[in-house]
């Protein structure tokens, strides 16, 4: 009964449209740019070790220092809160290891570690209202992706996933891009836009999709950052 109730909370795909898109220009070596639905943009520069809001002309302001040692090839993704006052970024102590999810508050000028782990891997954050989500991907010979809400692991899967900033569908439901069942040999696989009930851990694939962020809009979910823009009516 509990799982039925949980499943009923999950959205259903009512239609999918796909549009081929040109590759977005690189923001520069070691840089990553994220934005929210309102268009507030935040840049992380792992070479300079800073995170900043970008103004309308693309110039950085409200700069906060976040020390980073990650490979500039894999700077991480930036999640921006709905009001644009906060951002979630990755900070690593090694080129491909010891990752931490850092919450940057531009109003306070602060940077706070939300979650970290030892070993190779990466993290991506997401905002679920006032709560902070952490997707932590452990690598190594037994790779595993885990979705954390505070100190609670709400879902995990063995294998390697692609980093993608999730979106909030409702107070209990998250939209994210994952491969629900990675191949046992490659430990990877084709990804789908999925809905996750964070209270029960129920996961529902909605449509095949790949990208670096999910946007939640009234009645639809959008996956961007891949070779195609995928819009799923829910």
């Amino acid at each position: 009964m509990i799982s039925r109730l949980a499943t009923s909370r999950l959205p259903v795909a009512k239609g999918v449209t796909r549009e081929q898109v040109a590759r977005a220009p690189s923001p520069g070596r070691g840089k990553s740019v994220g934005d929210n639905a309102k268009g507030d943009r935040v840049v992380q520069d792992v070479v300079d070790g800073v995170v900043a809001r970008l103004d309308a002309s693309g110039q950085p302001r409200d700069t906060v220092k976040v020390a980073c040692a990650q490979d500039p090839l894999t700077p991480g993704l930036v999640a921006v809160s709905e009001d644009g006052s906060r951002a979630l970024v990755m900070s690593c102590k090694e080129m491909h290891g010891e990752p931490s999810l850092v919450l940057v508050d531009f109003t306070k000028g602060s940077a706070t570690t939300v979650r970290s782990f030892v070993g190779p891997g990466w993290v991506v954050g997401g905002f679920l209202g006032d709560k902070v989500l952490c997707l932590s991907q452990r690598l190594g010979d037994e790779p595993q992706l885990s979705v954390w809400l505070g100190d609670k692991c709400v879902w995990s899967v063995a294998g390697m996933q692609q980093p993608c900033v999730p979106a909030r569908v409702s107070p209990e439901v998250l939209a994210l891009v994952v491969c629900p069942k990675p191949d046992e040999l490659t430990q990877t696989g084709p990804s789908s836009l999925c809905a996750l009930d964070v209270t029960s851990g129920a996961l529902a694939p909605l449509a095949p999709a790949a990208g670096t962020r999910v946007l939640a809009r009234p009645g639809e979910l959008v996956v961007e950052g891949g070779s195609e823009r995928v819009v799923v009516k829910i």
Partner: protein
Amino acid sequence: MPLIDELRRNVFARIRAQTSSSTVATVTIQGSSNVTSATGGTFAIAQDGMERNLEVVETRLTRAQVIEKAKTAGVPQRVQVGPTCGLYALGMVMDSWNEKDPKNPTAIVQDLDLRGKGKQYTREPTTSERILDYAQGEGFTALGEMFTATQLAATARHFGYDATTHLKATLDDLYKVLDAGHPAIVGFDVDYNGNPTNSGGERAHYAVIEGYFDDKGERYLIARHGWGVQKDHIWKASDFDASWKALQTTTFYGTPGDGVIPRQFGLDMTHELPEPSKMSLPDAGNGRAHIFESLGTKIVEVVPKGEQPVGGVR
């Protein structure tokens, strides 16, 4: 080529334990209505009347076992420091030949490696010369990046190996190199997990291909590279093929030919970093350089002197 299909068909093979025919045993298991002994071993009659051999052993070929069976050209791991993936890939190949015959030379990439025995290197270097010093001195690289495969082969030759570059290589060329037991150094576009992707060349990276196998009609490659985030990667050959063809442009040098390269990670950039003197990548516009002709679909084959490479040019 390893017959992994055949190996995996035996994954659930059941092996009857060898036991004496006189053995009589009584075992109580949940769901059994009675227990008896037959021609040998211990058997149980389940409630549905089926006979279960309690000494049946289930065997399973693990992913690690698949890798070990299929590797024909394995190399020791080195974890890179800096944007030096090609040089560390070359170091891994030199280590593998040195492991087979200590007379074959090997070298460490940079002095920093000396602090990381077991991680940055495993075999004792046979020379005090550093691979990075040579590549920088020759004007191949600024920080260890090697966007031109022929220059990586030239570096291998300097350190005492015969090395060729397969230009316009195909997967069939790759299999021939591996069939000869030679590790293959290749460029590809890397994702966050160290696997092939397509970012148009922006995340160009080197790996060593160590072997291949077929399973359920799909061909797979076994690869190792300088990130060290996984001991060995298994990639679909088709994914790798798309990825090494995706090496089109890079922003590493900014506009090639302007003499300077943009600020790089971990450097004191109070001075501008000059482009390497033998970097001749064509300008792709918008602060990018073309890399397909120099790196895309290339194999660097490195063998000890006296052994014949299966192909490529010197």
